[in-house]
């Protein structure tokens, strides 16, 4: 099922949680709402779920207006950050809840419910925990049960609010891959909220970057990473060197580094801010060749990459550079003069 939101606005007191948000979620897609905490992403998710109502704007499910439909009738599966499992019920009863609370006429038979619950528990690979209580499970297991519970009612859309936010790094990583595979199997339209860019990059088909209640950019993870639409996205997704400078005649001068800036063709120099990814800078030993002369400040190895920090002599600007490194001696030593050449950069006015 496709979901559309149009011109959503929501304020809490004086705080603008959502400011004119319009988005389309395609059927069968897995979309991440990504942004810093307090940016409005959870509010958006809760409005789509029907747990919150917008001040103005509309929510459409498959083209039909659902803005003020009660959450009970929306057919959404909601997964909470802190699981919200019913502690006094067994895992089985938790998953069966959505089926057993149906009015008698629509309720499946006992046997059908049991079969469906066990199928779901197999799907989340926790069939062996059916008789346990939530308190006896680990965080990762609880969240998988919460997901099975949400899926039991065969929702038209699955909404996940920071589903892995309360878990430790290791479990998070496992569950990410698992969620992606599950989605590939079920193909239910899913939206999840996260503040972890790596999580969004790894799991989502598309990412919606939100900042201060507004949509900054919508795109595939590649698009978001390779062509950030705004300074905010550049700074928020991945690491980037932020450099101030001037631009004119199609070129920008950023702390001594010269990069192409085709958007700034005017002859009057204008103040700009440029962003360069650490792996988009080339380093060459010695003081010959192209680029700006810099001095190596520090070198460290992180996994298969070498992180080099270099200082541009004209000011206090440091550049972070990331180079592939396959072991052996480090090609640069601290204090050594090298030439730095940016291969790609993005320049914004201001």
């Amino acid at each position, binding site marked *: 099922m496709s979901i559309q939101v149009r011109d959503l606005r929501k304020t809490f007191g004086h705080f603008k949680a959502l400011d004119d948000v319009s988005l389309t979620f395609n059927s069968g897609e897995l979309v991440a709402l990504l942004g810093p905490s307090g940016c409005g992403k959870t509010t958006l998710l809760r409005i789509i*779920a*029907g*747990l919150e109502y917008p001040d103005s704007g509309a929510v459409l499910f498959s083209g039909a207006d659902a803005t003020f439909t*009660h*959450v*009970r009738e*929306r057919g*959404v*599966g*909601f997964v*909470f950050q*802190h699981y*919200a499992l*019913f*502690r*006094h*019920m*067994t895992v089985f009863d938790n998953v069966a*809840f*959505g089926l057993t*609370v*149906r009015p008698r006429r629509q309720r499946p038979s006992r046997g059908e419910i049991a079969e469906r619950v066990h199928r779901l528990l197999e799907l989340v690979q926790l069939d062996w925990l059916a008789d*346990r*209580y939530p*308190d*006896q499970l680990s965080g990762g297991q609880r969240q998988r049960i*919460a997901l099975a*519970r*949400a899926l*039991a*009612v065969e929702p038209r859309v699955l909404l996940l609010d920071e589903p892995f936010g309360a878990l430790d790094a290791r479990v998070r990583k496992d569950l990410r891959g698992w969620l992606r595979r599950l989605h590939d199997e079920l193909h239910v339209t899913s939206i999840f909220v996260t503040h972890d860019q790596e999580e969004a990059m790894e799991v989502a088909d598309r990412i919606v970057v939100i900042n201060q209640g507004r949509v900054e950019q919508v795109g595939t993870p590649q698009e978001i990473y390779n062509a950030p639409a705004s300074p905010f996205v550049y700074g928020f997704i991945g690491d980037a060197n932020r450099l101030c400078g001037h631009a004119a005649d199609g070129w920008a001068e950023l702390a001594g580094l010269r990069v192409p800036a085709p958007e700034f063709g005017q002859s009057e120099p204008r103040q700009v801010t440029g962003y360069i990814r650490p792996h988009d800078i080339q380093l060459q030993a010695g003081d010959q060749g192209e680029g700006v002369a810099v001095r190596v400040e520090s070198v460290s190895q992180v996994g298969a990459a070498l992180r080099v920090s270099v200082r541009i002599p004209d000011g206090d600007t440091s550049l972070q550079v990331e180079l592939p490194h396959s072991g052996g001696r480090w090609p640069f030593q601290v204090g050594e003069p090298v030439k730095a050449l940016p291969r790609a950069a993005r320049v914004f006015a201001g």
Partner: protein
Amino acid sequence: MSRNRVIPGFGLSLGYATLYTSLIVFIPLAALAASGISLGAETFWAVVSHPQAVASYKLSFGASLVAALINLVFGLLVAWVLVRYTFPGKRIADALVDLPFALPTAVAGIALTALYGRNGWFGQYLEGWWGFKVAYAPAGIVVALTFIGLPFVVRTVQPVLEGLERELEEAAASLGANRWRTFRRVLLPALVPALLTGFALSFARAVGEYGSVVFISGNMPYRTEITPLLIYSKLEQYDYAGASALGVTMLVFSFILLLAINALQYWNLRRQGGG
């Protein structure tokens, strides 16, 4: 058992707890029992099975149970309102709940008698229009016992209700549960242990209550005479052994009932996987 604990001092604290409960609870009760038994089996039985005594047990325990049940329902309601809603004067309402604890029960009894008496604010209508007698009737005893027992249910349920996450209700709603089913299947089970505790405390308090009841009940033998009053009248006649015998009987009944409530509590916790 005492080894490998995070907090040491198991032996000391157990010894202290035993000594303390012995001094405060057990020894006085044992003395009471001893004094009752001094009557001899036959006289003891004659005292405790006297029709007047039997009528008073029925009234005491019956009225206490009814009062505790009323408190169970309305205490939950009051706690719910105090936790879930904000309204002007909420803090004052919250403080008012404790008032029955602080008020000398005799004062409560006099106030209630004034209200529900034939010429009182409520009494004139209840009795005058519908012919429903409250003061000087068993209903009046229930009113007094409800009054003094209210804080127990409210104060035991309130913190549990505060601790229940909103998300539980949201989860239930998103799974299609209507309000009644959400309450019945998600909220109520979480509140049952606190409700049982509040019920037990309210009931126990009501059984032992004396001060407020004597004013409103009228103390008519066989009709509106509670056991504590019967005990008191025996004491006034210097029949200490008879008073003790009645006291022991009450004690046994109360103990059995409270034990039953605790068993219910235990069973409920086990059923919910908490045990």
